[in-house]
């Protein structure tokens, strides 16, 4: 699964730390999600989409291998 969290953060002018604080996780977790080393739970994905005020499908996308 791939995501465009980095782009969404740039649009909203948020650092990883700020996004992490908003959704109650560590900065390292946000970094792991952005670099596709960790796939977030549904709850976390929905929280992220709420911060970016967009649909979760606009942030996360399934890949062929999924």
């Amino acid at each position, binding site marked *: 699964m791939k995501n465009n969290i980095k782009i969404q953060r740039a649009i909203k002018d948020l650092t990883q730390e700020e996004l992490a604080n908003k959704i*109650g*996780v*560590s900065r*390292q*977790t946000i*970094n*792991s999600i952005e670099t596709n*080393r*960790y796939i*977030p*739970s549904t709850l*976390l994905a929905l929280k992220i989409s709420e911060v970016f005020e967009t649909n979760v499908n606009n942030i996360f996308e399934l890949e062929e291998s999924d």
Partner: protein
Amino acid sequence: MNKTQKDLNLLPPVFKKIAYGIMFLTILFAILSIVKVLAIDKHIAKTISMSFFLIALLLLAITRSKIEDELTLRIRLKAFAASFIYGVAFVIITPFINLLFDGSFLLDVGVEQLLISMFLFYFMMMFIMKRSR
């Protein structure tokens, strides 16, 4: 406290200081017993030291860090699983190692030593996985 922190029922961070305190006092007790400042039977001193050291390690293992989220929970569970597998492998492989070096097919490691090594393995795995997340 978020839902993940509530679900885990981990101890508050203050218990880390308590654990280090117990560890320090245990090591001090052991040293004083070895140099015979404290007149305690060697086996009793060893049992007391091992038990309190295990309590300290357990407290460290079940105390939450500053931020506990779903990724740290996953890392914890992986580290626990890895230390359990290590424990089983240790019990199975040690007699063969003893056979090679001593010629006797025995497991002569105590339960306390095994548990302490499992805890240390758990902490090592936590450290490695947290660094590479």
